[in-house]
């Protein structure tokens, strides 16, 4: 049981990082991306490749992953600067589908559908972290750091610029905001932070393949943000926890016939998503009182 909880804790922390970083561009910059799993994946593949071929040290693996994702995120920034609303969603979706193909076909790096096998555990100054217990602590600390960084950013003048752009681009322009630069920066930061989750995930699972980084994952992350509460600090974390605990809890419905349990789980999961949206469209945490500008990063 303990192992089960720790394992769940690790996954929740890692997905919470993804949700928090997506919320950063979704809730504050109004960039509704359906391609967040791409940066999760980029981080995972980059981290895994470094670990497999070079060094499993967290100080090598994570920065490399962040760099790769940051560079790739410029592809997402491109449409973000040109279009908004549904058009951007579609562009991000296009990017997601393209990335899946690349993940599945660039076999030299990603191993294709077969994936990368035998990824070594992360190494922090000579200590290998792989037991669920110690990995849980690692992922929790990382989550805390990511939350702290985004929180600082959101409350600074940068955060205000983001929100201004979200609320009215033309007015933001009229007050001297360099929208292109600000949006690009936010996308790059979000992608780079998401890549941390990716590289840790690869190390923890010891196996990755394209399935973890497909559209479903992007939607799942988005659902976490929305169910938790877009534009709130705590919401994405609550959303991540809820959406990961739900299927776990469903697997304890042991009275169901074995052959149908998979389908029933999926059905309940899908319905659960819809029902939450119907009854808590603003998210569980809801948008509290807008925070006032405090502190300068």
């Amino acid at each position, binding site marked *: 049981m303990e192992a089960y909880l720790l394992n769940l804790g690790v996954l929740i922390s890692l997905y919470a990082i993804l949700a928090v970083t997506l919320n950063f561009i979704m809730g504050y910059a109004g960039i509704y991306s359906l391609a967040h799993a791409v940066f999760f994946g980029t981080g995972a593949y980059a981290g895994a490749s470094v670990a497999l071929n070079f060094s499993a040290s967290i100080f090598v693996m994570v920065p490399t992953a962040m760099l790769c994702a940051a560079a790739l995120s410029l592809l997402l920034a491109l449409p973000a600067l040109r279009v908004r609303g549904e058009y951007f969603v579609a562009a991000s979706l296009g990017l997601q589908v393209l990335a899946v193909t690349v993940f599945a076909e660039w076999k030299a790096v990603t191993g294709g559908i077969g994936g990368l096998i035998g990824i070594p555990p992360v190494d922090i100054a000579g200590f290998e972290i792989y037991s669920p217990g110690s990995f849980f602590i690692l992922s929790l600390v990382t989550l805390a750091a990511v939350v702290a960084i985004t929180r600082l950013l959101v409350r600074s003048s940068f955060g205000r610029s983001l929100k201004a752009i979200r609320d009215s681009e033309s007015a933001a322009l009229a007050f001297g905001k360099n929208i292109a630069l600000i949006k690009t920066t936010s996308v790059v930061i979000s992608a780079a932070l998401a890549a941390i989750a990716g590289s840790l995930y690869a190390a923890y699972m010891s196996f990755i393949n394209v399935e973890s980084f497909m559209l479903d994952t992007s939607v799942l992350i988005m659902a976490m943000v929305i169910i938790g509460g877009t534009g709130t600090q705590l919401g994405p974390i609550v959303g991540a926890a809820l959406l990961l605990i739900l299927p776990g809890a469903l697997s304890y419905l042991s009275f169901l016939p074995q052959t149908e349990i*998979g389908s029933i789980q999926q059905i309940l999961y899908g319905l659960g998503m819809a029902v939450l949206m119907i009854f808590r469209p603003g998210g569980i945490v809801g948008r509290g009182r807008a925070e006032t500008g405090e502190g300068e990063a």
Partner: protein
Amino acid sequence: ADHQIGALFPLSGPNATYGDIFMSGADLAVDHINADELLSGELSLRYEDSQALPQRAVVGMTKLVNVDQVPYVLSAFTGVSKAISTLAQRNQVVAVNGGGVGPDLAQLGEYFWNVIPLANLEVRGLVPYLVEEEGLKNVVLIYVDDPLGQAIRTELETELPTVGGTLVDALSVPTTAQQFSGIAAKVRAAEPDAVYIASYGAQQLQIVKQLRDNGVDAQLVTYSGYSVSEALALPESEGLIYTTQSVDYDSDDPVTKRFVDDYTAKYGRAPTAYNVNYYNAVRLFGLLAHALEDKGQAVTGANLLAERMATDSFDLVGGTVSFQDDGTLVAPIQINIVTDGAGQPVATVDVAD
């Protein structure tokens, strides 16, 4: 003490049919072991849904290993098996495959066993028959772009030339593809004598149907993944050639007889090789655990491995068999032709090297 073992089968998604088939064999073995009181306690099977997808399987495997702490896991599918093999090795849990046929499954470490002959044997059995007996030299391969498909491609590339055949073209399709009219056009353009299809699940049926619909009338050929009733029943399957492992269901050996009788009684249909394999996989656990209990040793993955290495041969369905050094069982390959919605064996080839 009671025993629990795990299984990673597709219980939902496009390959769920296989899950049903595998389960029926495994469940029967559990029934038999418990009825015989072969073990000191009750044996039970814990299923996790892999959807035949590697990543999902890894999540399920993590749960089986860490939470349920099973010493022995039934695996299926090439991609799934490769993905979980690291966890099996790292945690000293035995994983046994009875469905996946990618030849690299033989190289996944000592904790990974196969109770099914792998595709290198199937291809090696088929190719000479195809080229020499049927005179079908020019083959086009349509293969799913995953570890299984890639493995078969490699096998065909090496095997065909040895008997004077040619792989004219190899067309890959993504695992999720449903639409093959374009592929059919390319197949026709290559003018092959035979088309080898290396896919599984719903997709292989779609390929067969759409090839026929779109004017491909060359001989269709495939491997053991096709040996499921819904595939054989497809009207377009008529005349298709496929390979399976050869099992002598009419054998007088008591294990086989009991299996065939009880299976037919329980499920109202005759067993297939997949049923046999998963029955054998569970039975193998029963035999090994029984031996360990006799010696007063704990039933752990490591002990199971040691016990298997120490045992020369096992009485399983289909006869008495022994493992090769790489943890793989070999069996003769049988070549079948679909006639009236069922497979008719036309030849049996012994390919063990």
